């Protein structure tokens, strides 16, 4: 622990064998290749943190900085986070439940997805390590975020994406001056290539060699939910799953808040995972009782941000879902669009396809009786609908087209009386 720099992380610990590694740019254990995760001196954090201290800080993710693995001030993304927790009463009515909230990272800053949280931690760490070149493998949202945050920090970036990605997500990356490389292949092939590049060149790939730091940024999504509920936990969380990391980090966030004394309540929150049926390795593992997921070679879904066929945290996500008492479901592309539409029409929130999957899965779990109608549920919206317009052009009716004539307008409105006859 170093009080001067507020860095309470003690290193990286292997999730398989428990071996502790120093704080370096490495993502796997040299003994068994198991994933490394940041570990902390929680007793020291408990002594140095309080609700009052946090509540005095600006409303962004860095108000929980004692629980994040960086030294000194964050140098990338100082304004990320602090997104709304919306009490979603109209959606609750539509779904037939009593207490529902939307955690809305569709309006996260600067690139409108939860990825800004993980990227700000990863790139702050990259700068601590003295790295000048950073990068990622991405299904889109991460590409946008690494490109934007690297640009703002003056870092060179290499962003590798599947060539089949939505045009808006590619454009929304190139605009920042990144070296964008569209790869003819699946996300998993892009990811494998990035591991080879990171090992060869030593650049800071946020979800490869910086992954243990990167993933910790997702915890702030969970801290914010708990604080905005009045320093307590909901009974149920429904979360989209791509690599399967976020769902675990939200749960870890709750456990940590209890451990450091910020929330008295034990973490008994049940975790539910959402995927698209066209790429459902984790939900399939949960539903069929497999300990390890079966990878999907060629995902086929409009929900490209969740299209990871071989999720790195698939094993841990499925295990957490089972052990917490939750469940997992997947939905078709049509159900995803219905979910996007339902959220937009009831709450005025335009989520991307992954959000549509989350809403549709929540509806399915409620209908199955797995999500109780009278308990508190939070749905995680992680990205913005303006980025996935490609999925909607054919599904949403175009507007009625008229001439600028009052008579033509009035032919459209039925049942509205004019105030002056």
């Amino acid at each position: 622990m170093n009080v001067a720099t507020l860095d309470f992380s003690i290193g990286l610990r292997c999730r398989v064998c428990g071996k502790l590694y120093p704080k370096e740019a490495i993502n796997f254990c040299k003994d068994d290749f198991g994933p490394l995760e940041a570990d902390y001196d929680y007793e020291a954090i408990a002594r140095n943190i309080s609700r009052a201290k946090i509540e005095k800080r600006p409303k962004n993710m860095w108000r929980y900085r004692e629980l994040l693995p960086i030294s000194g001030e964050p140098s990338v993304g100082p304004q990320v986070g602090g997104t709304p927790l919306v009490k979603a009463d109209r959606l609750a009515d539509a779904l037939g439940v009593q207490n529902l909230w939307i955690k809305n990272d569709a309006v996260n800053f600067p690139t409108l997805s939860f990825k800004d949280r993980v990227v700000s931690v990863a790139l702050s760490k990259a700068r601590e390590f003295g790295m000048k070149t950073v990068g990622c493998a991405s299904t889109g949202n991460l590409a946008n975020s690494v490109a934007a945050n690297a640009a703002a920090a003056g870092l060179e970036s290499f962003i590798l994406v599947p060539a089949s990605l939505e045009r808006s997500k590619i454009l929304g990356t190139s605009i920042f001056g990144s070296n964008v490389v569209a790869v003819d292949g699946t996300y998993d092939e892009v990811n494998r290539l990035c591991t080879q590049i990171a090992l060869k060149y030593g650049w800071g790939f946020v979800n490869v060699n910086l992954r243990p730091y990167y993933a910790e940024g997702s915890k702030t999504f969970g801290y914010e939910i708990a604080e905005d509920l009045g320093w307590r936990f909901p009974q149920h969380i429904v979360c989209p799953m791509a690599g399967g990391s976020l769902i675990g980090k939200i749960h870890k966030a709750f456990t940590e808040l209890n451990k450091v004394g910020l929330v008295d309540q034990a973490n008994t929150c049940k975790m539910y995972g959402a995927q698209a049926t066209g790429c459902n390795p984790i939900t399939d593992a949960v539903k069929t009782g497999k300990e390890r997921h079966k990878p999907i070679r060629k995902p086929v879904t409009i929900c490209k941000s969740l299209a990871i066929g071989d999720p790195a945290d698939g094993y841990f996500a499925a295990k957490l879902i089972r052990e917490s008492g939750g469940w997992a479901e997947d939905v078709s592309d049509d159900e995803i669009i219905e979910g996007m539409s339902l959220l937009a029409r009831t709450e005025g929130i335009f989520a991307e396809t992954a959000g549509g999957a989350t809403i549709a899965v929540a509806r399915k779990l409620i209908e199955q009786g797995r999500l109780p109608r009278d308990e508190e549920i939070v749905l995680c919206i992680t990205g913005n609908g303006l980025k996935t317009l490609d999925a909607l052009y054919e599904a949403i009716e175009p507007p009625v087209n008229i001439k600028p004539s009052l008579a033509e307008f009035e032919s459209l409105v039925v049942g509205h009386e004019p105030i002056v006859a």
Partner: protein
Amino acid sequence: MPVKIEIPSPLRDHTGGKTEVAATGTTVQIALADLVSQFPSIASKLFDGGKLRPYINLFVNDEDIRYLDDMDTAVADGQVIAIIPAVAGG
């Protein structure tokens, strides 16, 4: 011309610093057995109880062997087997 096995940097301590090792074998299983016979200390890193560790992926000419015939995937002279840590992405 034998099969080439690409060694990722964390395993190079066990191959005397070699980035690539030539091995003989008609399947991935046999080629890796030859790798282990050349560099015995690498065995415990790659295998646990005789099985490939879950956080290692193997590729033959850039194709994941889980989508081929797994450890029985055929390899021909000149082909490349890549050993790649699996914990990335998302």
